[in-house]
């Protein structure tokens, strides 16, 4: 259940990021385009699914070192660009040479945003943990002060 919740949350986050990026891309370069709502949302759902499936590049039996994590992050970005750019072109999200650069930039931005969201959620969790560690320490200290061991003075 824990994993299902985690992946649903990831799906929703990535979906939101991709939708925003694609929306602004269309608004900037193809404002006159008309996409049926269902088709648009359906395509974004496919994009999200691909983005999440590509996370398999991070899979490892052993804990990744920081260097290995960076290598895989670059590989993941390249994989996303290689898969999403042709698909987006086929679906009419970008047309010309300049568009491709901007769309590639949007993918990079979306990935950076994903890591930023992840980092800020982790920072919140870390703050909660640190607060609890501090509380537990103070509690133990006051317990020790209240019940000093014989001969400990």
């Amino acid at each position: 259940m824990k994993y299902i919740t985690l992946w649903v949350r990831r799906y929703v986050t990535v979906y939101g990021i991709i939708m925003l990026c694609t929306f602004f891309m269309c608004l900037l370069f193809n404002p006159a385009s008309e996409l049926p709502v269902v088709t648009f949302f359906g395509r974004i759902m496919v994009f999200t699914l691909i983005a999440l499936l590509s996370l398999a590049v991070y899979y490892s039996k052993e804990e990744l070192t920081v260097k290995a994590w960076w290598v895989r992050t670059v590989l993941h970005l390249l994989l996303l660009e290689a898969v999403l750019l042709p698909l987006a072109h086929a679906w009419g999200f970008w047309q010309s040479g300049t568009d491709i650069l901007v769309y590639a930039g949007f993918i990079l931005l979306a990935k950076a945003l994903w890591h930023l969201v992840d980092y800020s959620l982790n920072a919140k969790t870390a703050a909660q943990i640190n607060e609890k560690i501090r509380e537990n320490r103070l509690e133990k200290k006051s317990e020790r002060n209240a019940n000093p061991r014989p001969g400990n003075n």
Partner: protein
Amino acid sequence: MRVTVEQIDPKHEEELIVRCYDPGAAWVLGVAEAASGQRTICGWQEDTMHRLKLSEILYFEVVDDRSFLYTQAAVFESKEKLYEFERMCAGSTLFRCSKSMILNAEKIDYVRPSLSGRFEAVLSNGEKVVVSRKYVTDLKRMLGV
């Protein structure tokens, strides 16, 4: 074996007396450890065996299929596998923190997020270890967050 449990008045000190044939028998040592609240594990340094209290251990790590126990002052090799050690630690302050490590929550000074989507725990000796997000929920539960 006959087991006798006697309920006493809180005014008296609690006491455990074991009547046995062999005071060195594993079950006797186990009872003594459980009663004192101090579970121990064997750690090896060259050919010398040391008995280490679980509360002394900073973390247990598997590197290249060999297991190591880290305390504040020294490193010991262990014969336990990760899953065996994890089973031994049930109910203690040690928890699985990554694919190859079991960490003592009591020895964590503070944690901080890392860019790699994981956490970095800074221990009481200043050492930094990785805590996977997958296992951070166990740490939160243990601390009561």
